[in-house]
């Protein structure tokens, strides 16, 4: 694919589209990538990054991370920081799956101990953690109780016995965004999501048993600080978000912003999917308060899934979750907008950071991360395809260049339809089993869509984030068992 001729190389991993690239750009767009990854990006990535650079109030640059690919509105991997006083908030800069994120959980088990019971373990996970189209959770929660979930996030789970106190500390923002207002949420959103707590969903959402092999450890000291201390240690990683509730919140506000954007606020954009409202406007503040509800639903969802996982492991190994060392490494959100303090033009300033398919990456010594990670930087969890493995990384000081943000996954390179044409789900399942990965799914077609060849090379993506100084690789985790919707 040919790159836009205006694209200029700023450094080995930073590429810039100037404001002259497209009408209406307020700041340049910067793509963080190696030459190899850049060559694989679709033309849509550059167009969408340039469209983001047109949003009122955007500061410094519109960024796209190394796993960037063509999305709707923002590219996936898109990052934009807005001036809260003059800038906008855009649901298209967060995604429909608000607070989609990753959670990583330790065990003290080794691969040798888990292998003999792998099928039993994965089968029980598949039976106990609902997956797939329209799935509902085991938590019986009334519509009025659900409002408390929206206000409290993981704190609600702690009150109900679905969390250990330390889980909250190991979750971004303590598992709860303050200022969530259920009154800003439609009845429809509540109707759609109140019985989905503790469900994975489908698509690229999964729960995976992984191994930290000694040869895959990049930084032994940080690995130890993150709890990876035993050769061939087994960990569990999962990926999901705020389910139908979050999707409805995003949809509701997309429609509401569309109605007022041009008429009331005079904002014209290249793509309606970027519909936005001034952050300080009544509409902007209402969306922010509703989005926080969805963020909290996302945290509660992953927390209840962790509770379920602990039960499953305990049942299979006849030991308590505490005895199995099932502590959280961390939980990161990769579809959010947050008010954070960053240095802009030499001055510390409060900014509204949109991250859509991008992970916060706070470096060593920064406030806002657990005390035990102050020296290492925050854990960053980057999920790969279910075949190739995932990474645990650490936030770096160099991420200041991107409002402390790094990549979130490996990023698709092939459409779902194309992937499905190239491999049948059942065949893929057999091949993976031969390679020692046991998968359970509701959907053969959906499985084929997630084949490893449909994604960018996770090794290249994480190496690029390291080269760019955004996050450093700590350990690569390889899958041995997986459930997906």
């Amino acid at each position: 694919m040919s790159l836009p001729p205006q694209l200029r190389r700023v450094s080995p991993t930073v590429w810039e589209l100037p404001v002259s690239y497209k009408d209406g750009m307020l700041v340049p767009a910067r793509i963080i990538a190696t030459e190899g990854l850049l060559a694989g990006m679709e033309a849509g990535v550059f167009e969408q990054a340039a469209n983001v650079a047109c949003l009122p109030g955007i500061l410094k640059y519109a960024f796209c991370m190394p796993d960037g690919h063509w999305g709707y509105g923002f590219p996936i991997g898109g990052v934009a920081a807005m001036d809260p006083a003059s800038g906008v908030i855009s649901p298209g800069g967060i995604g429909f799956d608000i607070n989609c994120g990753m959670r990583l959980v330790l065990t003290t088990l080794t691969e040798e101990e888990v292998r003999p019971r792998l099928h039993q373990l994965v089968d029980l996970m598949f039976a106990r953690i609902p997956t797939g189209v329209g799935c509902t959770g085991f938590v019986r929660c009334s519509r009025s109780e659900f409002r408390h979930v929206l206000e409290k996030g993981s704190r609600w789970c702690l009150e109900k016995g679905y969390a250990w106190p330390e889980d909250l500390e190991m979750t971004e923002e303590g598992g709860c965004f303050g200022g969530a207002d259920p009154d800003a949420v439609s009845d429809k959103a509540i109707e759609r999501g109140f019985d989905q707590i503790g469900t994975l969903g489908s698509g690229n959402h999964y729960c995976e048993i992984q191994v930290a092999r000694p040869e895959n450890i990049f930084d032994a000291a940080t690995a130890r600080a993150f709890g990876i201390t035993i050769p061939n240690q087994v960990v569990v990683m999962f990926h999901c978000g705020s389910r139908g509730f979050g999707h409805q919140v995003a949809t509701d506000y997309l429609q509401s912003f569309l109605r007022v954007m041009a008429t009331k606020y005079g904002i014209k954009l290249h793509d309606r999917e970027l519909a936005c409202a001034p952050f300080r406007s009544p509409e902007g503040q209402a969306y922010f308060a509703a989005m926080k509800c969805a963020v909290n639903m996302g945290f509660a969802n992953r927390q209840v899934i962790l509770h379920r996982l602990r039960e499953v492991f305990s049942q299979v190994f006849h030991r308590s979750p505490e005895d199995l060392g099932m502590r959280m490494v961390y939980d990161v959100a990769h579809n959010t907008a947050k008010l954070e303090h960053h240095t802009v033009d030499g001055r510390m300033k409060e900014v509204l950071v949109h991250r859509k398919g991008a992970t916060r990456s706070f470096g060593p010594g920064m406030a806002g991360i657990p005390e035990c990670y102050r020296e290492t930087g925050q854990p960053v969890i980057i999920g790969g395809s279910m075949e190739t493995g995932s990474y645990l990384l650490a936030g770096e000081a160099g991420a200041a260049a991107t409002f402390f943000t790094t990549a979130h996954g490996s990023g698709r390179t092939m459409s779902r339809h194309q992937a499905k044409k190239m491999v049948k789900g059942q065949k893929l399942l057999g091949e993976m089993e031969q390679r020692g990965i046991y998968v359970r799914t509701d959907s053969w077609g959906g499985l084929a869509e997630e084949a490893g060849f449909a994604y960018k090379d996770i090794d290249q993506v994480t190496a690029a984030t390291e080269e760019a100084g955004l996050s450093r690789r700590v350990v690569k985790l390889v899958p041995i068992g997986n459930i997906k919707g």
Partner: protein
Amino acid sequence: MPYKFLDDIATADVAFEAWGDTREELFAAGADALLHTMVHDPEAVERREEMTVTVEDDALDLLLFSFLQELVFLKDARRLLLHPERVRIAENDGRYRLESVLRGERIDRQRHPLVVDVKAATLHRLRVACKSEIWRAVVVLDV
């Protein structure tokens, strides 16, 4: 099958083009494509329950967006997978009103070969237009 899935519009999501001789046929084709995105064999979904969906908008493309969005909502809130049986679109003072009767049933994992959950219809590249007397639409779904 008056729709086809498009490969070159959205890598991570699902895009389709639907068509019909009338607006009503086009909207029904869009609902069919949505069902086919979620279920590999749409005919496995039996027509056991009936639902009526009504949406309004000033623009035809946004009317399609709202219609598909309503079906996505019913998939989660009522667990219903639905075939469009009848679509009526009325125009009054520049405002469109769609009324559709749909038939289907609740999701049954044993009988329905499910593919992928649709999170939302998006506005990305959304287009509804009539050319050479054929109504066509392009829709990107977030999955």
